[in-house]
């Protein structure tokens, strides 16, 4: 069964240029996208800042009206029947906003349990269960203003799960969480999926998407530029290997020469801390390391590494060619 169906979905933001002058500026944040998510799937929406991911999610959870096109969640149209959608979906966003700071974690959960129609008889048990899941048991009576970032994020997740939503929207849930916390979060999300919850996730961490997602759509500048399983996306960049060379000096000037080498698919410069790294992607089966080093003759080099393509490589290539 298809749980999320999006077709030709568009959203334009109109903002007044200034309160005094007439006229407005238009931003077309989502430019006609189509995708479908099946029941029980964990679907990733990846894309650079400002690509339109949050806008898409907000249309699906009925916080924003689409400018045109349509979206259905669990068979309910998000424009025609928003309340039916709201009853069945959960929404969690990253960052530390969205909580009542002056009150305790328990107060926050109780309030939202009421708003989401969790029956009074079940609230206590449900909240206790979620506090346990979120690792907040024992600290639920403290005020949220004293919570760490990770605790807040886990409280958010507990809040989003109160009413046992059939579909969960996670907008950058792992932002600002330490590596151990992020790993626990991934386990939680994977468990939810295994228990049958459909999940739509956005993240900027490619390994996270690679580990979790069944299917991914890459969105850039309001359009979906690729869609498929992580493996399919990786194979799009070709089976070719990736050569990374740390350089000191003018890296940009050698790029044309590198791109001219036979077997080279693309060559770009990436900033990594204080140094620059040239990333050369080879055609499938091509061996380019010798050629690349030859072309860099005369430039002072640091570390040289060869590896197989990752989801991040696929992502960067897809987004840059978009």
């Amino acid at each position: 069964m298809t749980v999320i169906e999006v077709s030709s979905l568009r959203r334009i933001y109109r903002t007044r240029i200034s309160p005094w002058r007439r006229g407005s500026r238009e931003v077309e944040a989502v430019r006609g996208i189509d995708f479908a998510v099946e029941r029980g799937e964990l679907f990733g929406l990846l894309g650079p800042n400002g690509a339109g991911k949050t806008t898409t999610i907000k249309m699906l959870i009925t916080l924003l009206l689409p400018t045109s096109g349509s979206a259905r969640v669990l068979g309910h149209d998000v424009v025609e029947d928003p309340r039916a959608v709201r009853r069945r979906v959960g929404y969690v966003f990253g960052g530390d906003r969205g909580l009542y700071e002056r009150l305790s974690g328990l107060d926050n959960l109780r309030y939202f349990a009421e708003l989401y129609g969790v029956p009074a008889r079940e609230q206590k048990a449900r909240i206790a269960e979620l506090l346990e899941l979120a690792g907040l048991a024992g600290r639920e009576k403290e005020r949220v203003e004293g919570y760490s970032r990770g605790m807040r994020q886990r409280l958010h997740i507990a809040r989003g799960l109160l009413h046992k939503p059939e579909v969960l929207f996670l907008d950058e849930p792992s932002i600002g969480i330490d590596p151990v916390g992020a790993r626990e979060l991934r386990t939680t999300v994977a468990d939810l999926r295994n228990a049958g919850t459909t999940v739509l996730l956005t993240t900027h961490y490619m390994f996270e998407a690679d580990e979790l997602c069944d299917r991914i759509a890459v969105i850039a500048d309001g359009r979906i530029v690729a869609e498929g399983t992580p493996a399919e996306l990786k194979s799009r960049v070709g089976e070719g290997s990736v050569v990374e060379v740390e350089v000191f000096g003018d890296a940009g000037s050698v790029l044309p020469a590198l791109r001219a080498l036979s077997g080279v698919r693309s060559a770009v410069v990436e900033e990594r801390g204080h140094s620059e790294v040239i990333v050369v992607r080879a055609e499938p089966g091509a061996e380019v390391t010798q050629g690349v080093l030859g072309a860099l003759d005369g430039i002072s080099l640091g570390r040289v590494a060869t590896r197989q393509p990752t989801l991040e490589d696929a992502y960067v290539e897809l987004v840059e060619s978009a």
Partner: protein
Amino acid sequence: MSAAPAASIPRVLAVGWWFHLKMLSRSAFNGILQILWPLFFATIAFFLYGIDGDDRTLLYASIGASVMGVWSAVSTSGSGAVQRERWQGTLELLVAAPVPLASVLLPVTTAMATVGLYSMVTTLLWGRLLFGIDVSIEHPWLFAFSVPATVLAIGMLGFLLSVTVVRYRSAWALGNAFELPVWLVSGFLVPISILPDWVRPISWVLAPTWGVRAIRESALGGHPLPDLLLCLLLGTVYLLVGVFAAESILRSARRNASLSLS
């Protein structure tokens, strides 16, 4: 997995009211204001009328001052509260919940009005303690009804304001802008009979005008019942208008992306 059942609205209202009351009680700043304002209002009233006023005039004035306290609390903090929800990112979560928006907003201002009720009682007490005003009541029963009715009606007026704040990001300033004019026009401090004629119709559609009259007449003697009923009627009208407006305003907020800050 099943869909969450529809929440019961009375429960949502009651839990929300308690939740917001708890939150208000946690702010030291609010607490201090709630103690200082009544004192401040009672003092103004005393100096306005105190010089040549008899005891009954002083009671008249301190009732006005105490209702003023309720309105000040509701108008400024009531609309500010919704703006704070937007600012802290909870407004979107409230909207994303399956309950009607009105049932989420109503408790915000009624909680505020409840705090105002406290300020009302303390203003009268201050008047009694500081200035020795005689606070004996002519119609205790009607007084006991008029006070909560006025507080509720003021809460409903605040609710109408807060509904507009959902739609217009800068509307929270409306609360502050309305604070003073409503003081004047509702006759909290000076009788509305001394205001220009064109102001009268505005006074008539403001529930606090009738509320404060009902309280005064039940305290000082007169016929408070018609005033009380008008106050309740107007409060109900505000409620209905707010509830109906909330849904269409929400739609407009979804179209105009005014639920969040970004």
